[in-house]
């Protein structure tokens, strides 16, 4: 597939936002259960939410660039029963709403206690909103991922690993982002976020490597033989019916050489996983605290590259019909 930059930005930006939100709420939950010291600054959560919202809005904006008719975007909520894209379109604003309220709750310091657990844990509005947001964040991960994973012909995508990757990569970048963000707003949480970011990044490396390994072993199910229904070992397309290109050649071919693809692969493995992990580790254990906030700056471009590769590696069966373009 030809990587579409609007979609790359959409997925990476909202992924980071989702991760960031999860990071925030994780921190809040830890605090709630006393695993972390009480947080004085409620504005930290509010500002965090704002950052997430900015990322989400950026993603949303990017997505509009993907549409031929953005003015009709509202129509896309119509088919939530069948279309993961439609579902994403519904969940995304819901999630944004939840964050907004969540941030507001923190900002306004709404202390309305809804329940107090036996252990004495106080459940207030921000906790409820955070929980809803968490559910929505995961729902959004699933929707986004399923847009790709649900297409059986795109076999590189059609795997649970796509969903897991989406969650882990979003999570990793979100926690890295949180660490960066905490550097200024809540330095005491920085190591907490960084530690999680480290763990999730490593998990992401494992699952992404697993999907790379899986994809390497994939044998195409569709061949030129099944595509045109002729059984013969040697079939070569001589003409795709036009010479100046068509939608089918623009949308589905990245046009890059295998060596470019290879470099991008190693590049994103380094930039999205290995380097951030090293930086996080350095910050956490090697006493180079300056490294922590920089992890995200390395990881995010790495994830852009990862998304690019995600598209480029996907081999659409329609390409069998459009091999001959010179």
């Amino acid at each position, binding site marked *: *597939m030809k990587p579409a930059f609007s979609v790359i930005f959409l997925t990476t930006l909202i992924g980071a936002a989702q991760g960031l939100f999860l990071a925030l709420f994780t921190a809040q939950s830890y605090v709630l259960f006393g695993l972390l010291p009480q947080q004085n600054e409620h504005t930290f959560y509010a500002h965090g939410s704002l950052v997430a919202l900015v990322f989400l809005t950026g993603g949303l904006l990017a997505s509009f660039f*993907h*549409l*031929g*008719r*953005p003015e*009709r*975007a509202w*129509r*896309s*909520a*119509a*088919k939530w029963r*069948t*279309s*993961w*894209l*439609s579902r994403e*379109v519904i969940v995304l604003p819901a999630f944004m709403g939840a964050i907004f309220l969540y941030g507001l709750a923190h900002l306004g310091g709404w202390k309305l206690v809804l329940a107090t657990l036996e252990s004495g844990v106080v459940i207030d509005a921000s906790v409820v909103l955070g929980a809803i947001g968490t559910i929505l964040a995961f729902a959004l991960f699933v929707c986004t991922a399923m*847009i790709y994973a*649900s*297409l*059986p*012909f*795109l076999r590189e995508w059609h795997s649970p690993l796509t969903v897991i990757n989406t969650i882990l990569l979003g999570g990793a970048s979100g926690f890295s982002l949180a660490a960066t963000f905490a550097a200024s707003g809540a330095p005491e949480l920085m190591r907490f976020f960084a530690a999680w970011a480290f763990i999730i990044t490593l998990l992401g490396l494992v699952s992404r490597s697993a999907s790379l390994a899986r994809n390497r072993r994939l044998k195409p*199910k*569709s061949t*030129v033989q*099944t*595509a*045109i*229904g*002729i059984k*013969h070992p*040697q*079939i*070569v*397309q*001589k*003409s*795709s*019916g*036009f010479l*100046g*290109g*068509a*939608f*089918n050649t623009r*949308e*589905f071919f990245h046009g890059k050489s295998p060596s470019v693809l290879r470099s991008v692969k190693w590049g994103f493995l380094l930039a999205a996983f290995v380097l951030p992990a090293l930086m996080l580790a350095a910050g956490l254990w090697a006493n180079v605290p300056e490294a922590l906030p920089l992890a995200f700056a390395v990881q995010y471009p790495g994830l852009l590259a990862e998304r690019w590769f995600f598209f480029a590696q996907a081999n*659409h*069966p*329609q*390409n069998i*019909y*459009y091999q*001959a373009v010179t």
Partner: protein
Amino acid sequence: MTQLALVIDLNVCVGCHACVTNCKQWNTSGSAGPLADFNPYGADPTGTFFNRVQTFEVGKYPNTQTVHFPKSCLHCEEPPCVPVCPTGASYKRADDGIVLVDYDKCIGCKYCSWACPYGAREFDESRRVMTKCTLCVDRIYDTALAENERKPACVLACPTSARIFGDIHDPDSPVSVAIRESAGYPLMPEWGTYPSNHYLPRRKTALHIHKDELQRADNPLKIDGLLPKPAKSEPSLDDVMSW
């Protein structure tokens, strides 16, 4: 239920592209149009076409087959392009099985084109909506046309009548008969899309001549004396055998 479709006979298609440009001219001024062309007189001209004719070479010289392969939307019975559409712009008509796009609803997200394994959809860059073969819905029900002209433009144009149109759910329709009797097959059956359009394979007619057919009593060379007839008086089995 009716499922309208095309059956394409690779046995007679000569790759002339008549179906390609006839489709274009019918549809560009029709309900699906206009179909835009970019750089129409410049470098790398490109445009929206609902139907393309491709060429494949099968085998090695001298045992080569050249196969001309027309392809448009296959109007799948289980069209994966439809459920993925977030707006409902892509739909399959219940009464005749035609898969269509409602250009007024389409937001141009291209997701349906990702979901079509056949590359049958083309995004129109000028209207910025998805387009595809309509099976000429604006012809086939047009009562202003003579009965035998209520067929897709490409079908009427095709000089070799390689394109047959009809209802594949009606076992007696010409398309069903062709599929049954000439081993019609669907493309990429592995995806369970059940394409309605079918393809008929190449069929080969051979001639077998037995050696003895070359030597016959009525050889005209006999008349001109080049193949002498043995004289009646020469010895024959008649002289030596008795039964």
